[in-house]
């Protein structure tokens, strides 16, 4: 009973709310249809004919002609370089001093090109004389086929540089193997790679011993006595006799 009364009361409240909402909407509609008309007088303005004539006379407003741009920085540089070269060329061809300079430059270029083509080491060409056997040379620019081993080994022994002497003996043994075509000489190969290329057992075994001495003295930095060097030298001389005739 109480619930029914409550429901009826809620329905009444809802109907009242809807009625108020509808009335307020109708009032809003009637308010928005009022129109305000602009009744002010319009003043017509004309273009200034004198100004138009002035603009017509101005070239900047002549869009029919394509603009001619000025020289860019790069073009000015090219022009300057061209003039300079022209002047130099004139000096080089028309004056005796200029001709000498041009001939010298051409000769240097030709010599440089020839040296590069034939891979000539200019330093070696000039230092191939008596001072070539100096011991503190750069080991990375050596070519075993160009070295006078007998003289170099002799000099090393005289200076008691036995470590270097063993190294030279080893390089000499590589040269002998290469000359006899027992190995294919390539600077990038290791000692053991050369050893693997030798087919003759005795030659290979003694070359292995020379490699051993070379590695311990050169890479291992072991000190070598005169007696030890003599042993290596004897081994080398014995080994040379084993090479094919």
């Amino acid at each position: 009973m109480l619930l029914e009364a409550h429901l009826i009361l809620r329905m009444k409240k809802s109907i009242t709310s809807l009625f108020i909402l509808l009335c307020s909407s109708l009032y809003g509609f009637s308010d928005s249809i009022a129109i305000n008309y602009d009744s002010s007088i319009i003043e017509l303005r004309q273009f200034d004919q004198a100004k138009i004539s002035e603009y017509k006379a101005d070239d900047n407003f002549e869009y029919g002609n394509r603009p001619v741009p000025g020289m860019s920085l790069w073009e000015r540089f090219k022009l300057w370089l061209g003039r300079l070269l022209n002047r130099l060329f004139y000096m080089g061809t028309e004056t005796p001093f200029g001709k000498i300079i041009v001939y010298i430059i051409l000769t240097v270029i030709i010599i440089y090109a020839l040296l590069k083509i034939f891979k000539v080491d200019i330093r070696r060409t000039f230092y191939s004389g008596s001072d070539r056997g100096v011991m503190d040379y750069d080991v990375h620019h050596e070519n075993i086929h160009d070295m006078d081993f007998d003289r170099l080994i002799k000099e090393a022994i005289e200076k008691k540089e036995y470590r270097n002497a063993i190294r030279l003996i080893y390089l000499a043994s590589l040269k002998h193997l290469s000359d006899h075509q027992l190995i294919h000489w390539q600077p990038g190969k290791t000692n053991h790679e050369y050893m693997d290329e030798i087919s003759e057992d005795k030659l290979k075994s003694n070359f292995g011993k020379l490699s051993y001495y070379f590695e311990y003295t050169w890479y291992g930095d072991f000190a070598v006595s005169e007696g030890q060097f003599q042993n290596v030298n004897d081994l080398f001389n014995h080994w040379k006799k084993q090479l094919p005739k």
Partner: protein
Amino acid sequence: MSKEIQNDKAEFQSRVDLTDLKNSVDRVRTEIGKVVVGQSQMVDLLITAILADGHVLLEGAPGVAKTLTAKLLSKVITANFARVQFTPDLMPSDVLGTTVFNAKSTEFTFKAGPIFSNIVLIDEINRAPAKTQSALFEVMEERQITVDGQTYAMDEPYLIVATQNPIEQEGTYRLPEAQLDRFLFKISVDYPNLNEEISILQGHHSRKAPHDLGNISSVLTKENIKTYRETIHGLHVDENLVQYIAKIVHETRENPDLFLGASPRASIAIMQTAKAYSAIQGRDFITPEDIKFVAKPVLRHRVILTPEKEMEGLTTDQIIDQLVEKIEVPR
């Protein structure tokens, strides 16, 4: 004459006592050889990597004993061992560890992951995505892990042995260059030859439990490794050979067939591993032979071929061979 010279060969006494090191290495070879047939180069490179304090990436087709060798290595060294199988859904915290709340003590405590071992085998490393790979950067280089602002140092010796299969592409991720550079060696594990294959079959047939590694003895301790590493560090390196190593690595940066050259870390790796390799030969100085032996496993994962050469079918190994041959051996 020959006999006299043969006697003289013993006259260069090693300045550093490498007898114990060499004996230990021989015992390791013997123990691994009880199970793995052939693969002597792989075993030598693994031992070299341990002595040079570097991580190893083993690459090879399935079934060529990559994982088995890594497990055997952990058996011959008395040290902690952990194995992680990398999968696409693996998270960095699964590898490194994570902070968990302890309800009993009402505190957060760090639960260490499998990476906290002396030897960590990461199987199929290229199956985990870049996020998990990146988690390994710090531990591989600095031997430490930083989690929640806390740094945890790894116990020495610390070695990661990772495996990957080069053939399978499905579900794999290419390892980042920064991570590859952190591997000391990338060892290519080849198929055995015919005789080795026969020996494998015979060994497998005669063994009652082929997967049992119970007969493998530990021959190296953590202390041994530490001592050997100190010894190796002091070995002699000739100045000309230092230049030779530098030239090889420099050439990788100049070679037109290579898109990316090797880093200075590669130069250091070549020198360190050449020293370790010479020590296991019983020599207290390095030779160009040692450098050539380690150059390929050190460089092959650190250089990248140009796309043209890759399309021509060339491999990094071929280019490394060519450029090493080009450089004059100092004599």
